[in-house]
């Protein structure tokens, strides 16, 4: 299969889905991302990213039960798939390997 690409924001969302395992849906992802990144993120951006990730097969989703919150609408929970995990690993590896090539330069003075 062709290597699926992973954009920067998508990667962040995917990481968050993985981190929040089984508790990941739109609002929790939004809140956690905002607190980690320290900036405002729009919910619609996350929805789009999630849909793309699902299409690429990096996450799967299921609906939760009906509660009285959210006007009775079900939550849609996302879980990372093994392909998604592999993609994250690959990304992480590439970054670390390049990072390690950085010569030891001191920026202190």
């Amino acid at each position, binding site marked *: 299969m062709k290597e699926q690409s992973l954009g920067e924001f998508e990667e962040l969302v995917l990481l968050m889905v993985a981190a929040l395992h089984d508790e990941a*849906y*739109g*609002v929790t992802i*939004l809140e956690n991302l905002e607190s980690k990144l320290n900036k405002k993120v*729009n*919910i*619609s*951006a996350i*929805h*789009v990213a999630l*849909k793309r990730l699902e299409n690429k097969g990096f996450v799967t989703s299921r*609906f939760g039960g009906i509660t*009285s*919150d*959210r*006007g009775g*609408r*079900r*939550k*849609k929970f996302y879980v990372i798939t093994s392909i998604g995990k592999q993609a994250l690993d690959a990304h992480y590896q590439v970054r670390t390997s390049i990072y390690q090539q950085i010569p030891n330069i001191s920026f202190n003075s």
Partner: protein
Amino acid sequence: MNALPPKYPLRFLRWFCREEFLEEMEGDLVELFEMRYINSPKKAQRLFWWDVLRSFRLVNIRSLKLNNWTMNSLRNYIKIYFRRFRKETTHYLVNTLGLAMGFAVLFFILIYSYDEHHIDSIHEKSDRIYRVLETSESEGEINTYTITANPLAGGLKEEFPEIEETARMVYMGSGGLRYGENEFQDRNYVFAGVQLFNILDFEITKGNPYQDFDGMVGVTLNETCAKKLFGDENPIGKLVDLPGKVDGAEVIAVYKDLPANVTYQFNMVFVTHFDQVPMGYAQWFEDWNSRGATTWALFKENTSPESVMEKRQAFMDKYYTEEQQKEHAFSFQLITDMHLESSSLAQTGGEPLLSVQYANKDFVLIITLIGFLVITIASLNYINLSSVQALKRNLEAGIRKINGATMAQLRFQLFVETFMTLLIAYIIALVLLVLLHQPFLDLTQKQIPVAEFFNSELLSFHLMAFVAIWILSSLVPALYYSKLNKTLVIKKNAFSGKGDVLRKSFMVVQYGISLCLIIGSIMLYRQLNYVQSKDLGFVNEHLLTLDINSRAARDHANNIIHDLQMDANVMNASVSSRVPGEWKYMPTFNISLNKAENLIPTKHFVADQYWLDTYGMQLKAGKNFSGVPSADTLKIVVNEKAVQSMGLEDPIGKSIWITADSTYKMQIIGVVKDFHFTSLREPLMPMILTSPNNPLFPIDYFTIKSNGNTAEVLDLIETVQKRYDPETPAEINFLDERWERYYKADLNRSYLILVATIISIIISAFGLFGLINFTAERKTKEVGIRKVLGASTQSILQVVLKEYAILLLIALILAVPVAYLILNNWLAGYAYRVDLSVWVFGLGFILVVGISLITVISRVYRLAKSNPVNSLRYE
């Protein structure tokens, strides 16, 4: 605690969002809203709006294939539209093309009108730049000039705090530049204060107009002139001569050629230190009672000329005597009004050249009106044709109704169909606009980039026209269509002839408009033709003029004439004070039989003994000048009109008094037939001619009649000019070119009107053809029966044609008074005009009848000739 999110965004979200995403997204948005609501309800609502808007993305929008009622019926309507288009191709083509042409004409005319209204608005400060006008009132005659007292600019700036900047510019006859061997003649220049650059927009490409320079004049010129004079050299700092005016002036700046849509497109602006001009001139420049400068005033933001006008009297009292005040009442004209509101202003001859001639506001209004008339014709066509089509569609309407369609839905269907037709017509019109823009620009003598055709203001006009026509022309057919009786559905091909009166009156209006346009065009043509072919009293062929721009040329006038006449290519040559078609003012003196009684204003020309021959004028009585200066001094030749105004029975030998600066008694030696040296819009004035050796006025032009070998004659004139006046370059003009300028604007207008008229007739004919086509179909059976019973082809033609002939007659009766009133008004502007005769109306009528008959007969003849067997089988 459950606060409800705002209703409308939620509804919007549910409307656009894909079904499969909706639950998740709505849930998340609502949850966020509920969380935020605790902190601040207001903010939560705002953010909810924002989130919904941000979610409005392509990926989230549900597809159009969804089974939604509006979409479904729309699709059905469009499908039916195209099916009918295929079935009734003639009808739909006629309809669409008519509308497309109407749109195209309207849009072209809107572009024309838009451009006319935006001349000079390109200047950045155009909303507060004013040209100063002066009104003089003497002996009951009121004239408004664009030329003011010379020091007015300085005075205005000093006295009125509202005025931010003023500048004056002065035009001084022939002009040009010389740099080494290179030189050229060009009158499109001004001497101006450097402040002019603060007021009008110049795009400086080299140098700096504000810099210091030595001497009286610093030269700035546009890129074209710079190229002409210096080639690829850098012009800045070079010394050039203004032949006959200034030697050794420094070039200080070069600017981009001024754009085509400004009135003044100076090729050269000579930045002048008006305090350094030579003695005699300096006095004139400071004289408040002079009239020589065009004055500009730039008002500060948020101020207006009204406040200055209120304080005008104090200003006048300070600078003028009571007598002079009548001559110099100034006022302000906004720069963007110059183009359309100056055509009635008086000229002194001191005006700088106009690169874009003033236009008549009324004309722009009329042509705009014609544009709307043409689109009206096209819309009426549409209404008529669609109404009868709608009546034919009873089967469709019946089935729709039986299936439960409401009246509103049926009407909506027709609105959709009109929209489709208009859309197709609009697209065709846009294509026409792009394809035909070059011929249009040639016709109107304008330079407008195509991109400007679609600027936002014009596009908003398009939109308005589109929507207005859409709604107005959908109403009638929609009404017909929705009112069709559903019981008719069982009777196939039944037709109810509803709305005949309405349809017929629409046709009458259409034909009335067409008739008015045709009659108008014919009159326009006859008038312009008359003006151009009228016996002007002189022969305007192969005539060249040479301006006298120097003392040397004036002193050697006799030698120059002699040398010119020696050449075989020159038929004749003469010298005079004025020539036809020249915009310089014609001096007016008063003549009378008794020294100071019954003064008659009279145009004055200086002319030598060859002048009448050169211009091919004829003496009616008496004799010409003798050519002996001393004998001719106090002799005059008058025209017939002058004899008439003075009431002389036997003018030859009579003495009359001529009042100029002082009064002279002169003897009439000859009477010349009337000739017209100015536009025929102006009435003929009494005229007197004096010899060059006269106390009244100097000579200013040579006129040379060539035998047609123009190139040789041009060379000759230059050689002769060099011989006697090596300093000044020869300024030569072709007389017929100059003369044409009087009528050029009229000509361009008439073309525009003519084209609009032709198209309006075509559109009307389209409409008629559509109607006839329909009538023919409807009457197929009737005609068949008539034929079976023995009617001839001719009698059948008669039956069908009678109806239309009556309509045309009614249209004629309505159109004639309207056309008559308008044309009479327009012709009143000409001193010499053609008569508004009956045959013009007759011809217009015959033209319309002819075109309609051809249209009608071409279709009806086929019907009348058809075999009744076929038509009776027609079900």
